[in-house]
């Protein structure tokens, strides 16, 4: 019996994979049943405050003769190992390797997704080759049982010149929906009294209820849209919520912040909501983590890497940039919600829009959808002098504005409803298709779905699943609004 060098890279360990890659690997390996099958794949690290993830990327398929397979074991040639290692080194200092193999059904029974004694023996000898001397990568090994959801996984890394290993609790498959496969080490638990949410369970089933109970959801922004998202999720049965906002509750923003009470004036917005969230939450247990900082600061971005899904409820375009990057690079789907109201010169509202956009591999990113453009970012940076370059050349004075957009609860609720419907699709799989992005617009009174595709050369798309190798630039607003 091999004694594996067990240790903790982080409190929790995950393996993640873009859905397209996972489906291809799974299909190709399982097609070789009744023989076992394997492939190496590149990995990229994603390390947050509490969770370390090995993100599986491009497979490095074995060439003819590089793997000798039987129903009970695999022999991997040294050429294949060298070739895979060379590919990882060539890909950069963050890139590691994963070994994915199958346990198919045999005459002795079902293919069990559990590392065998031989797997332990072999990997204990193999993974030091991949890890020692390379401190940045997180490598992984994964075994697929014969059932679609049967999986076991572990992560490997260099710890001071020695290879260490930690079992992974979950395998996250992303794109655009989020599928979570529990390994034998999963710490997920069911609600102790499931009847309290019977009518919701009829929509997404016991599996959906279990997911809601255990998913770690981050909500960036706890204001006009964020407050509604938090109360909606807590009511629906989400068991683990976190929120970031440095802004404080003032009498000026009470009228558009759901769940805010006068007794909490002066408190940071997430803190102001904590009491009501505890009161309305239906999950058991329920935990809410309040962070009175900007959710796109460097520290907050580290914490966000511990989430399974994020809601972006920010009011600045510039804040959407790092959240967009994080969603695709770290395989953490985000749902971006926002509203805008345009007031004409005569002070009448002449256009209103609320949107909910899914940001996840397989859906065009915020740049491709033109939610974010370089021009819009520049206009936002102009602040009180917005549009001045169109006026100054003609001797016209800047039109000074206070930069504060109108906002109203009803419109925000509509946008959040769209976002929560998208959440139900991404996290709970309630329909066949994840929409691109949804916009409700007035005065047309129409719900519109974007038809924009991913643009050629999109850097966000190129960085899908590249984890910590992608530099995400934090953003902190100059002043609290």
């Amino acid at each position, binding site marked *: 019996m091999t004694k594996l060098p067990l240790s903790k890279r982080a409190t929790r360990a995950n393996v993640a994979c873009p859905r397209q890659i996972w489906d291809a690997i799974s299909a190709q390996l399982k097609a070789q049943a009744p023989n076992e099958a394997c492939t190496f794949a590149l990995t990229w690290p994603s390390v947050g405050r509490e969770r370390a993830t090995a993100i599986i990327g491009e497979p490095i398929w074995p060439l003819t003769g590089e793997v000798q397979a039987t129903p009970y074991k695999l022999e991997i040639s040294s050429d294949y190992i060298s070739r895979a290692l060379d590919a990882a080194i060539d890909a950069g200092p963050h890139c590691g390797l994963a070994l994915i193999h199958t346990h198919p059904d045999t005459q002795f029974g079902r293919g069990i997704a559990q590392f065998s004694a031989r797997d332990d023996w072999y990997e204990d000898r193999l993974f030091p080759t991949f890890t020692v001397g390379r401190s940045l990568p997180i490598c992984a090994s994964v075994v697929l049982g014969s059932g679609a959801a049967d999986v076991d996984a572990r992560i490997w890394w260099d710890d001071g010149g020695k290879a260490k290993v930690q079992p992974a609790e979950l395998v996250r498959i992303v794109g655009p929906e989020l599928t979570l496969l529990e390994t034998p080490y999963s710490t997920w638990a069911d609600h102790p009294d499931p009847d309290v949410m019977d009518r919701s369970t009829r929509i997404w089933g016991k599996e959906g209820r279990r997911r809601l109970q255990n998913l770690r959801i981050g909500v960036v922004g706890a204001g006009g849209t964020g407050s509604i998202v938090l109360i909606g999720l807590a009511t629906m049965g989400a068991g683990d919520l976190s929120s970031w906002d440095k802004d404080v509750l003032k009498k000026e923003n009470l009228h558009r912040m759901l769940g805010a009470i006068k007794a909490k004036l002066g408190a940071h917005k997430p803190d102001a909501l904590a009491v009501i969230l505890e009161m309305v939450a239906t999950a058991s247990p329920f935990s809410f983590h309040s962070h009175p900082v900007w959710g796109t600061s460097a520290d907050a971005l580290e914490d966000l890497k511990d989430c399974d899904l994020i809601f972006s409820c920010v009011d600045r375009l510039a804040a959407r*940039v790092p959240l967009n990057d994080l969603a695709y690079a770290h395989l953490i789907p985000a749902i971006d919600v926002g509203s805008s109201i345009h007031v004409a010169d005569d002070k009448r509202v002449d256009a209103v829009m609320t949107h909910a956009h899914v940001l996840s591999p397989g859906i065009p990113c915020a740049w491709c959808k033109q939610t974010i453009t*370089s021009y819009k*970012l520049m206009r936002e940076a102009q*602040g009180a002098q917005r549009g001045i370059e169109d006026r*100054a*050349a003609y*001797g016209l004075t800047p039109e000074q504005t206070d930069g504060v957009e109108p906002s109203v609860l009803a419109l925000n609720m509509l946008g959040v409803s769209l976002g929560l419907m998208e959440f139900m699709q991404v996290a709970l799989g309630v329909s066949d298709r994840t929409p691109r992005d949804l916009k409700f617009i007035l005065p047309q009174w129409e719900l519109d779905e974007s038809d924009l595709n991913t643009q050629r050369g999109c850097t966000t798309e190129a960085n899908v699943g590249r984890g910590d190798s992608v530099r995400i630039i934090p953003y902190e607003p*100059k002043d609290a609004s």
Partner: protein
Amino acid sequence: MAAPDYIVEQVKRLSEESGETFVVTPNPIAGTELYAVYACEHWLPPRYTRDKGLLGFRVPANLPLGCPEDSFFIAPDDLQLVVADPVRNSRDINRAGKSTGILKGSDLGDISVLVFSWHLWNKVPWDRGRHTLLDHYQHCLRRFEQSEHD
């Protein structure tokens, strides 16, 4: 809030590659998240009444994600053409208007400048993965190379 490292580095490279001494304002322009990048003694076209002056433009703090403003400015604001433009019958510099306020809060003070709006990026959109301040500067110089009237 000091100018981000990326802008500082870009300004340094712009100076090296242009041969002009560009600097960036240490603080953003009042009421904005824009920084002014400028050279105090930049050459001006021979058709202007001075051969050197201030030349600059404004960039967002999140450059290159956000693009530079589609304009640039020169000073002093009394710059004119040496010879009147025969088409417009004017010595005023075409498509340049006096403006104050665009440098408020910067180390230049709220001086009056001539702002050009010449649709610098009208042919090729700003590409955040490719374009640099040197590209923007070269777009600005096109104005000096083209004829005075439209």
